[in-house]
């Protein structure tokens, strides 16, 4: 058995999601190779080689892979992946965009968003927004899988010394091109890897009031998220959304402020270690999953919390 893990990176840095994905690969057993596809991504390859438990790092450095266009990268991964028993990528927007395309090229039914490894061909995954957990077994020769990163503890980023090989395949499908990107710039930690997450909901009333949460976040070294209601109301941008259709988070501490707790939102945060809910409606469903509930007006409680910390 041999497993190919697709590294998540931005050509400069290896992203933490790769480490969680390698943890899932370890649970399946077998040699683990990592593919770094990008442009000018040599440093990422070096970083991947240091990850504990990695057998070999393949670096495909070509302009066609610079922006992770699925049409190009999927061809490369399908070419290289033919010789592996498993192909894994993190269930990030990049992984979800690319891996099913790889699977179809290999005539495989992929398995999305696994949260547990039962054996080399059997996995658990959430369906119906996390209301049901399905155990699925694949009969395909190659298993093509995306991994929910919050469900697996990251392997150490240091301690390995894998060989780095460059791959000389330039697959440009010629049907897509990158136009531009608008990425949120923030000094705060990334939502999916932050130790503490503070999220605001419709109860925040407007985008300006999120300032309160940012202040609290800076005190706790936290990331700030939002419910779908807050995003749909235009308070904050979409990349802050925590939930079934947004980001899945599982921090040590999750503070839900003015969030009622729709199933859609709970699906994205209920695996957090400690959940705090602040809401003035004591019947809000969020209290049924909260370890600590505070029934209070958030506009008084949040500033008070900030001063008391």
């Amino acid at each position, binding site marked *: 058995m041999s497993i190919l893990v697709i590294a998540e990176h931005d050509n400069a840095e290896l992203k933490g999601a790769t480490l969680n994905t390698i943890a899932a690969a370890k649970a399946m057993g077998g040699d683990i190779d990592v593919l770094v596809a990008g442009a000018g991504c040599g440093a990422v390859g070096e970083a991947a080689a240091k990850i504990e438990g990695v057998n070999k790092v393949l670096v495909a450095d070509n302009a066609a892979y610079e922006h992770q*266009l*699925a049409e190009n990268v*999927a061809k490369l991964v399908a070419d290289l992946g033919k010789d592996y028993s498993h192909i894994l990528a993190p269930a990030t*927007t*990049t992984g*979800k*965009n690319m891996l*099913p*395309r*790889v*699977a*179809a*090229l290999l*005539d*495989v*039914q*992929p398995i*999305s*968003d696994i949260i547990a490894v039962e054996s080399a061909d059997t996995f658990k995954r*959430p*369906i*119906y927004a996390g*209301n*049901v*957990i*399905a155990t*699925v*077994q*694949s009969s395909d020769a190659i298993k093509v899988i995306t991994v929910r990163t919050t469900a697996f503890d990251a392997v150490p980023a240091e301690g390995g010394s894998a060989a780095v090989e460059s791959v000389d395949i330039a697959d440009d*499908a*010629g*049907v*897509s*091109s*990158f*136009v*531009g*990107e*608008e*990425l949120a710039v923030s000094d705060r930690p990334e939502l*999916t890897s932050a130790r*503490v997450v503070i999220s605001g909901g419709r109860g925040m009333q407007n985008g300006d009031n999120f300032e309160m949460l940012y202040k609290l976040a800076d005190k*706790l070294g936290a990331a700030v998220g939002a419910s*779908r209601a807050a995003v749909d109301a235009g308070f904050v941008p*979409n*990349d802050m959304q925590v939930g*079934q259709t947004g*980001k899945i988070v599982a921090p040590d*501490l999750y503070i839900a402020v003015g969030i009622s707790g729709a199933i859609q939102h709970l699906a994205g945060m*209920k695996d957090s270690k400690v*959940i705090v809910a602040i809401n003035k409606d004591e019947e809000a469903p969020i209290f049924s*999953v909260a*370890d*600590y*509930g*505070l029934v*209070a007006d958030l506009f008084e*409680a949040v500033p008070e*919390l900030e001063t*008391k910390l």
Partner: protein
Amino acid sequence: MKVLVAVKRVVDYNVKVRPKADGSDVDTANVKMSINPFCEIAVEEAVRLKEKGVVSEIVAVSMGPKQCQEQIRTALALGADRGILVETDAELQPLAVAKCLKALVDKEEPQMVIMGKQSIDGDNNQTGQMLGALTGMGQGTFASEVTVEGESVKVTREIDGGLQTVELKLPAIVTTDLRLNEPRYASLPNIMKAKKKPLDTTNPEELGVDITPRTKTLKVEPPAERQAGVKVADVAELVEKLKNEAKVI
């Protein structure tokens, strides 16, 4: 240009599903079924493109049992021109759906296929990407904005760090995210008109597609329940608990 829109029949998003007692599958007996919300957004986008004069014909496709006609009729009431049902009572996995769609794309030759990014039952988020691989078309997944410009389409995509825009040569595939648009409600006259619009029926055999499942669901179970904790009286008690009991700050 012609657009193909795929719509899926799923358990209504307001229904909280539960596993059957024997854990063999999800209990869907007597629950309300609807068009998948992401597919509804796909239909709306196609209709808006038609209203702008970019699109001339919208073909709505669904796959599954006979009752999927209801979801096709919904799409027709929203503005699609005709429907195709790929009828089967067998289990259809995303790869099989993508293969059936590929067969229909070969036949219909649309300039764009618009579909939801995922269905709210299986939560797979695969079919559009797989159709892309099978047809060789470019894919604009998780779209929040779609602009057709001559022989190409610009798609703004919701990605983890923010937004990304790609340009795809037509024909291309677009999968919809939540904020692409807000679907309209079908008016009563349009619902009546939809009943008269053409709806063809075919099946996977006719399309020459092998739909044999590749994965088997061994078990379904409820997720580990989280227990409700305690209510704290005030902020001071909250801080004390977080420091001394939970030890997270």
